[in-house]
């Protein structure tokens, strides 16, 4: 943990429902840190423990075990000191349905130490033209944006966003990304959960993939993506009997006519494969080559049993 860490989490555990057999471990020993000014994304399937982790960072729940520091303080016991420097957008939160957007903003601003003007916050999420509309008349996406506006109303140093773009149309999602990037440029530290991989790829400086309460991969998006090898798949022609040759740096799996290659260096392996096919005058059916991607890394995790072990011999341990 370097001195530049805004958030440090050490061996965090959270258990629901007591220590008996009916209890459930939602978070099973998670360690990471978030540096000033970066965006750290928590990825994972539903039930992976993202929100349970966030709630402890936000000071809303005590850890069952482990230690969490935000801005050098305990976010729960020193809530009053930490909160004024923090903005939170919950996965699910509400505002009184009969208040208008502007009234909601005024109420929230009235509870903050140093709020920015309500109109400015509403403009930032593109809700300025809806100021006089009752919250109950807003669309789901507009409610999410109102929630975001309230989270940034206090000019927070640290911003927690739990699935901020769920339910947004693509246009609003782009605009929200733009806003988050502007906040990052102005020095805000952001912790974000999402299950949109392109969102993490687009915004995250570093990310962690959680699965069944543990972090199974952590690093920059490129590092985490590189953990899974590139893949080439194709079908051999009917009745092909020749054994498959050794090609540069890859693993081969053959099921019937289908062949799947895993390549460290996609270009080299693909070139070797195509030259071999040309020399034999072979037509490779359904040829598909894809480079490493966060999506593949994520799907591999989601499909796994949950033990944080190597899923594959080529796996690079990029967990920082």
């Amino acid at each position, binding site marked *: 943990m370097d001195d530049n860490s805004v958030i440090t989490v050490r061996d965090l555990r959270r258990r629901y429902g007591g220590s008996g057999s009916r209890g459930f471990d939602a978070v099973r020993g998670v360690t990471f840190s978030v540096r000033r000014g970066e965006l750290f994304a928590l990825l994972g399937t539903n039930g992976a423990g993202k929100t349970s982790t966030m709630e402890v960072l*936000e000071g*809303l729940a005590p850890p069952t075990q482990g230690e969490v520091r935000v801005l050098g303080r305990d976010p729960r016991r020193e*809530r*009053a000191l930490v*909160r*004024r420097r923090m903005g*939170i957008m*919950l996965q*699910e*939160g*509400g*505002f*009184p*349905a*009969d*208040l208008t957007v502007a*009234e*909601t903003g*005024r*109420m*929230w*601003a*009235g*509870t*903050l*130490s140093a709020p920015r003007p309500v109109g400015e916050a509403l403009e930032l999420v593109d809700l300025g033209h809806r100021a006089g509309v009752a919250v109950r008349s807003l669309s789901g996406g507009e409610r999410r944006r109102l*929630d975001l506006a*309230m989270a940034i109303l*206090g000019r927070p140093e640290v911003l927690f966003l739990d699935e901020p773009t769920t339910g947004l149309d693509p246009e609003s999602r782009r605009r929200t990304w733009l806003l988050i990037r502007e906040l990052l440029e102005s020095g805000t530290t952001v912790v974000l959960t999402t299950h949109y991989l392109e969102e993490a790829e687009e915004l995250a400086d570093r990310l962690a993939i959680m699965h069944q309460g543990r972090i199974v991969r952590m690093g920059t998006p490129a590092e985490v993506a590189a953990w899974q090898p590139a893949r080439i798949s194709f079908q051999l022609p009917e009745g092909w009997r020749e054994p498959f040759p050794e090609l540069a740096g890859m693993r081969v799996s053959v099921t019937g006519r289908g062949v799947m290659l895993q390549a460290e260096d996609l270009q080299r392996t693909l070139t070797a494969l195509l030259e071999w096919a040309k020399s034999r005058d072979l037509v490779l059916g359904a040829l598909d080559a894809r480079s490493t991607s966060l999506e593949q890394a994520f799907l591999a995790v989601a499909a796994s049993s949950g033990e944080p072990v190597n899923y594959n011999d080529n796996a690079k341990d990029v967990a920082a």
Partner: protein
Amino acid sequence: MSAGIVTMGSSRQSGHRIAALSRAEGVLLRRNRIALLTALALPAVMVFALKAAPAVVDAGGARGVGAMLLTGLTAFALLLAVYYNLVAALVARREELVLKRLRTGETTDAEILAGTAAPAIAIAWAQIAVATVAAVAVFGVAPPANAVLMLVALILGTAVFAVLAAASSAATRTVEMAQVTTLPVLTIPFAFSGLLFPLALLPEPLRWLAQALPLTPVVTLMRLGLTGTAADGHHLGMAATFGAAAIPVLVLAAWIAAGTWAARRWFRWEPRR
């Protein structure tokens, strides 16, 4: 947890935050204009309705009726405007995830509860003020024997029913359910408050039990303060009324402690899943 009345911080910022929240609650109340007007007109209507029932007035004498009426309307305001309305408001804010959202801000838990409770309490006190004016105008109420005791009854009674509301909201899953879950607190303390029938009619152990209920001390203190009449019907001097007030005040303090404990233990900030 005690709706902020007991544990409220004294800093200016804390007051600021409570004001911001209660202003929003106030906006919501004003949006329901008919309910608000009904709440404020009801006490006056009841005073005038009793005036039109000569049998009642003949039985007690106009001034006695005025004092009884004021005591009764205070009890109603605490039960309905404070207790019932606050249970409904807390459940509504909890179920629309507003309490959960508010807890992510700088506002402390006690401030959130105080901000939510303030408008309900303001309405209850406004009802009592309207009832007082109406009762004085229509029946002519004698100057109170001990106004301090009336104030004590009002403040402690409000605190008791506010913390009981916070505790009851934990057992109330929906706003509609509040009609059922509030019945025990609405009916039993009222039935044995001394308003429906004189508690002297009860056998000894039951009478003690009745005096330990949360509304009875409020009625006893109001009667002491208004007319200087003790529970057994004796007239007391100013100094003696303070002595007679000791036990009811202790009972109310015990209810505040018990209600605060229960609210701390069971209060829910977000819906059950």
